[in-house]
């Protein structure tokens, strides 16, 4: 029996007020499970990034609830929510957002530094994660000296360094060529996805569809379809 990592119920989110109000998410409910790689796909403006932000504790919904491992994250205080993100969620941003002048290892170590682990210990763990993503020989280089594919892998190392239960990837292949994008997602599928981890990927790249366990399609703020596989 699968264990739910995320249970979202009746999510509603709008931006603006009055006549300028724009509905971004309309009564969305979904589950994501441990050991599962869930894709959220849909055209631009369909609300998938907004949904991802709500599920990961970044954007507060106007209505509905999000339970992660049974805990309603939107009932947490602001500080507790930040701690939740730090301890439970790993993020891979579309533009990576690596600090260009820190070394690769220092970038990957940031979540541990935020957790107040010692500098040396954080770097040790980060180096091991960089080994996992195949960048053992790049740990002292700044991100600007790496290819975009390598930068993406640094971002993945940063996301998994804290051993999060949830991994959130926002358009992970958007800046990569087709082959590199495939290899990155294949790597995530093969090396990062575990039975104790749930991975949610927002994408509109059909070339990586084959790696999904389940795919949810969104349109106009609603879930319009769900298929197993890509």
């Amino acid at each position, binding site marked *: 029996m699968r264990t739910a990592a995320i249970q979202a119920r009746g999510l509603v989110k709008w931006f603006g007020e009055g006549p300028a109000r724009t509905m971004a998410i309309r009564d969305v409910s979904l589950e994501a499970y441990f050991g599962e790689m869930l894709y959220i796909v849909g055209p631009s403006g369909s609300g998938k990034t907004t949904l991802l*932000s709500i599920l990961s504790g*970044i954007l507060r919904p106007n209505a509905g609830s999000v339970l992660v491992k049974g805990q309603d994250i939107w009932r947490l205080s602001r500080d507790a929510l*930040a701690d939740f993100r*730090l*301890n439970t969620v790993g993020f891979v*941003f579309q533009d990576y*957002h690596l600090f260009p002048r820190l070394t690769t290892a220092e970038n990957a170590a940031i979540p541990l*530094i935020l957790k*107040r682990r010692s*500098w040396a210990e954080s770097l040790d763990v980060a180096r091991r994660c960089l080994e996992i993503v195949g960048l053992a020989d790049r740990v002292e280089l700044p991100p600007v000296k790496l290819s975009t594919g390598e930068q993406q892998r640094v971002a993945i190392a940063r996301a998994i360094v804290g051993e999060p239960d949830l991994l959130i990837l926002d358009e992970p292949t958007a800046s990569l060529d087709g082959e590199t994008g495939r290899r990155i997602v294949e790597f995530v599928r093969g090396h990062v996805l575990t039975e104790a981890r749930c991975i949610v990927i927002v994408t509109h790249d059909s070339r990586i569809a084959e790696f999904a366990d389940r795919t949810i399609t969104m349109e106009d703020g609603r879930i319009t379809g769900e298929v197993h596989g890509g």
Partner: protein
Amino acid sequence: MSPFLTLAYKLLVTDRAKFAALIVGLTFSVFLMVQMTSMFAGILQRASATVFNTGATLWVMDPAVTTVANSIPMPDYVLDAVRSMNGVRWAVPLFSGAALVKLQSGVYQPVTVIGLDDTTLFGRPRLIAGQIEDIFADDAFIVVRDPEYAKLDSPALGTTFEINDHRGVIVGIAKVPISGLFGIPTLYTTYRRAIEDIPRPRYTLSYILVEPKSAADVPAIVAGVEALGYRALTAKGFVDHITAFYIYQTSLGTNILMMTVISFLVGLSISGQTFYTFIIENLERFGALKAIGAKSRELVSIILFQSLLTSLTGYGLGVGLCALLVAVAKLRLPDYSSTITYLNLVIALVMVLVIAAVSGYVGVRKVIRVEPFDIFRA
């Protein structure tokens, strides 16, 4: 250092161009602030040189006196009246005036002449050549060996000159703690000879130097002198009076203040602008840190640490540079008046902390407002 502050430090110093711009700007700003205020402090100290060098506890003077160099002679009865006051241990006259000296070379040189009480010689300088009792010899003068000494052709013991058509002879060479402000040499002689040799108005008593029996007697003496229509000030009060004159009644204080404020604004603008650019360039990354789980107050602490670190580094370098410049200038220009006081350092520190606070505030405002969701939306 905590890993958090190490991260803040690395983020700052690895951006070498901006870090260098911040440090150079702040160093330059602090250097100018300390230089301006220490120059003013040096001028004020020299303006009160006679007060410091004489060492009297109380000074009695005409109420219209603004600086020690601009004495207004008082009638002799004031000295007798002061001596008869309760609480006065002793009181002696002091002459302070200007004269024109004709050197053996035929050159005329203005000098300051200090006439010491004939009986006590209170306020006499420390001699480095000659005997103090020789001051009672005919035409005797003691010359002060300070940066102005050379203007009298560096006289040796026995050198003669003319002062107001009277013969003068150097019988002693002295050192004083502080040189005068106006760049003219100083001669010491007895009170009696001073009023004989120097063209004099109706009254000759420049100041009365008073030693009270105890500190508790000072207020009564001050009141007694005021009842006579004159003013009595403690040495510190007199220095403050002179300082207030230069600050508020000459353009010197205003100009120095303006230069100090300009230096502050230069530092503020360079630091503020560079720091703002630094924050703007990293704003999305700060947003990413927020998304990852950094709290706003943690990001604020990063920024405040960075602004404080750059400001204090700039402060240290600026003070060091200024101290070096003052030391080198004093080696090359003995007349250079600049004194770095604790007050100068505190003023510069407060100003640089204001710069740190404003620069930090600019960054903090931006970082607090950035929403993690913006990172996804971008």
